[in-house]
């Protein structure tokens, strides 16, 4: 039973669209509507977000969310997008599950955990090459070339 096989095909598609739209809406809410969540009741998380905003990191992540969300919705470079999304989600999950006491943040943390966890599993086969015990150096472009040579053409 493969992740892209007929039984899982539409479930993976649903999760990809769900997570992609979630990122897209979150980023567009900030970039277009200018919505910034009220972190004043979020305790230590509020201080952390304020510090991120001060150095421009919060804004940068919001614009990155638009790009990553669009990549997932349009099914372009999904494994690459998931790596960046996992980094963003790890921070969100840590803050929302362990630091922020608010129930809404608890929901957000669990939602992120389930979606990124499932998608990383579903697309995890693309990262199998990362798990070699011993690896020789390989330039990125050389890896791309060997990928192209090994790709199955229909």
């Amino acid at each position, binding site marked *: 039973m493969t992740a892209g096989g*007929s039984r899982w095909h*539409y*479930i993976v*598609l*649903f999760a990809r669209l*769900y997570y992609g*739209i979630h990122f897209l809406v979150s980023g567009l809410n900030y970039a277009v509507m200018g919505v910034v969540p009220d972190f004043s009741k979020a305790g230590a998380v509020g201080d952390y977000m304020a510090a991120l905003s001060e150095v421009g990191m919060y804004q940068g992540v919001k614009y990155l969310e638009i790009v990553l969300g669009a990549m997932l919705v349009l099914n372009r470079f999904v494994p690459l997008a998931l790596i960046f999304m996992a980094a963003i989600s790890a921070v969100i999950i840590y803050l929302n599950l362990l630091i922020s006491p608010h129930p*809404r943040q608890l929901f957000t943390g669990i939602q992120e955990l389930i979606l990124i966890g499932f998608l990383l599993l579903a697309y995890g086969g693309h990262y199998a090459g990362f798990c070699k015990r011993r690896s020789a150096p390989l330039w990125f472009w050389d890896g791309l070339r060997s990928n192209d040579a090994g790709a199955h053409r229909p």
Partner: protein
Amino acid sequence: MKRHVVILLGVVAVTLIAVVLASTTFFERPLRLYDYGTPLLAGVLTFLKLWFDARAAAHRGGAPGEG
């Protein structure tokens, strides 16, 4: 086709119920489109894709989601 619809309907329904219950903490807080709208839209788009695939497969004589 029918099996795909039933499985997808179940997954989307369970997800929506879980999102509604968890995001409102069992209706203690107001329901927001921001929370339930995302899985709802993703579900609708997935059903549309399933429908288009089924139509295409009907012409080919295969099953949707294959290949």
